[in-house]
């Protein structure tokens, strides 16, 4: 049984590739989203996240490669497995002259697997979860960008889902809305769903992800549990002291690199040096240490480390 479960990972791709006329948008990626994960699918604008997600949802067909969702191949043409997937792709899209509720009712009616008898209550609870119940009767065209985004998330929650694929769910939301979405994702994951959430804003999803996949120019440059990814990256130490020059010299003798001296503290890249050797050496050199820390690299640091470049738009 164990292997069968391992085989039926919510998302598994091999060599997944999409070539548009002039460019390769997605280049041989092997995505693996484990069951129960909150998988942060990260990368700058234009790195191929939405294109990948469109392929996962059967909206566009891959140029090459395979996709399996919960162990069933998407190639086999049976999109039935998609009933287990709730999605938000490239922003909200609804009929402008229908109300939020009528729009959800329309999508629910198009779902062969939904029960018409509890349609009303499911729509209400989905609207409630995204804080849109009060505006349910308003026409979609009167919705603000944030309300539209919320409605799109509500659509993904209309039915109980095993996998939620959310493409940039916090786009257009204010900080409060962003916090709410993060909370919602955590809640969904706790209830047993697997979540694939894409973002071009690393800091926004950093706090909620268990796993991370990093896209860069169509390639998946890293994929790992978040903690693993962090520890594989350069670690920085920081020494707070009022004698930064002398501290810097000690660190240099120990073999740390990228030493930066600032008034009141020194930072340096740890490299191969053992952390525990630093303090005794500072003390021996009579450097007064007011504080010492090994800094967790932010996802941004990880990204720069992986690509050697900043987190900018790639063409």
């Amino acid at each position, binding site marked *: 049984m164990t292997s069968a479960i391992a085989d039926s990972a919510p998302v598994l791709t091999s060599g997944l590739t999409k070539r548009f006329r002039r460019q390769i948008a997605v280049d041989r990626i092997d995505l693996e989203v484990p*069951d*129960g994960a909150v998988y942060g699918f990260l990368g700058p604008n234009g790195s191929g996240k939405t294109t990948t997600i469109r392929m996962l949802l059967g909206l566009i067909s891959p140029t090459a490669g395979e996709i399996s969702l919960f162990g069933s191949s998407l190639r086999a043409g049976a999109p039935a497995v998609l009933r287990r997937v709730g999605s938000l792709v490239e922003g909200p899209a*609804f009929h402008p002259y229908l109300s939020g509720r009528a729009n959800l009712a*329309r999508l629910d009616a198009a779902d062969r697997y939904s029960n018409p008898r509890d349609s009303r209550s499911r729509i209400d609870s989905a609207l409630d979860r995204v804080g849109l119940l009060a505006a349910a009767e308003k026409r979609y065209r009167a919705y603000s960008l944030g309300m539209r985004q919320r409605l799109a998330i509500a659509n993904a929650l209309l039915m109980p889902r*095993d996998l939620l694929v959310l493409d940039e769910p916090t786009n257009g939301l204010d900080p409060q809305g962003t916090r709410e979405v993060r909370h919602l994702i955590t809640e969904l994951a706790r*209830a047993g769903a697997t979540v694939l959430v894409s973002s071009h804003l690393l800091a926004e999803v950093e706090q909620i992800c268990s796993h991370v996949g990093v896209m860069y120019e169509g390639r998946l440059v890293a994929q790992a549990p978040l903690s693993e990814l962090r520890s594989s990256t350069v670690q920085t130490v920081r020494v707070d002291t009022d004698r930064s020059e002398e501290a810097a010299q000690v660190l240099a003798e120990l073999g740390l690199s990228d030493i930066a001296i600032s008034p009141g503290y020194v930072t340096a890249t740890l490299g191969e040096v053992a952390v525990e050797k630093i303090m005794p050496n500072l003390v021996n050199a009579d450097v007064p240490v007011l504080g010492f820390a090994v800094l967790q690299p932010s996802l941004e640091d990880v990204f720069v480390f992986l690509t050697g470049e900043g987190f900018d738009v790639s063409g």
Partner: protein
Amino acid sequence: MSAAELLLVKNPPRARVSTRFLRSELKIIFGRRRNLAGMGVLAVVPVILAVAVRVSAPGQGDGPPFVSAITGNGLFVAFAALALELPLFLPLAVSAISGDAVAGEANLGTLRYLLAIPAGRTRLLVIKYAAIVIFALAATFLVAIVGVIMGLALFGGGDMTLLSGTQTSMADGMWRLALSSLYLAAQFSALGAIGLFVSTLTEQPIGATIAIVLVNVFMFILDSISQLAWLHPWLLTHWWTAFADLLRDPIATESIKRGLITALVYASVFWLAAWARLSTKDISS
């Protein structure tokens, strides 16, 4: 295995067969102000026609087909209105609905959400086409029914004289009107299949509608060039005026039959073309 997964294993969901999707599609078509305004225009024609004939001096001019017969029997308002709206208004209405069918959803972006549900591409085309056919029926019968009401109100009913000169009962006349409307609705449904196909080619619903109207007008033009007589039987629009054959006694079935076969062939070919197009199309809108 997650809790939600266990839930699905225990209660495997079954696909339901229901008319819910079709009803929601119809609600969108018939709830849209633009479409209601269009249907209003369709309904105004028999009203104007009946009033114009009523207020003008009797026996004045020949006018369009059937019009001279109106004063004899009000039912002819309906036939005359259908004949008047057949070249442009009714096909335009069907073009607008069918052009919007897929291109409209692609334009709004709702197509990707429908397909991600998954609504199913083939199922979507079946529902969209069913809605187009229902619209074609509704539009044709709207013109006929408004024509009957106006005609009976302004000219009265009673026995009617058919095109072949024979007399028949009012009930038989109504029956022939219903058959004519069904025949024309079938023709417009075939045009709707062309429209559905065009609609899968673009993300611009207005562009699709214009293209379908152009195809329709183009067929009329070809049909009017007598040097192209060999081509005429292959044109969908060639058979449209054959609905008048239903007003003969006995009914001249030859053209009606060929018209229906032509419509069926057009509908099948273009529905399949739409399917071939949509089932492989990248939805990147």
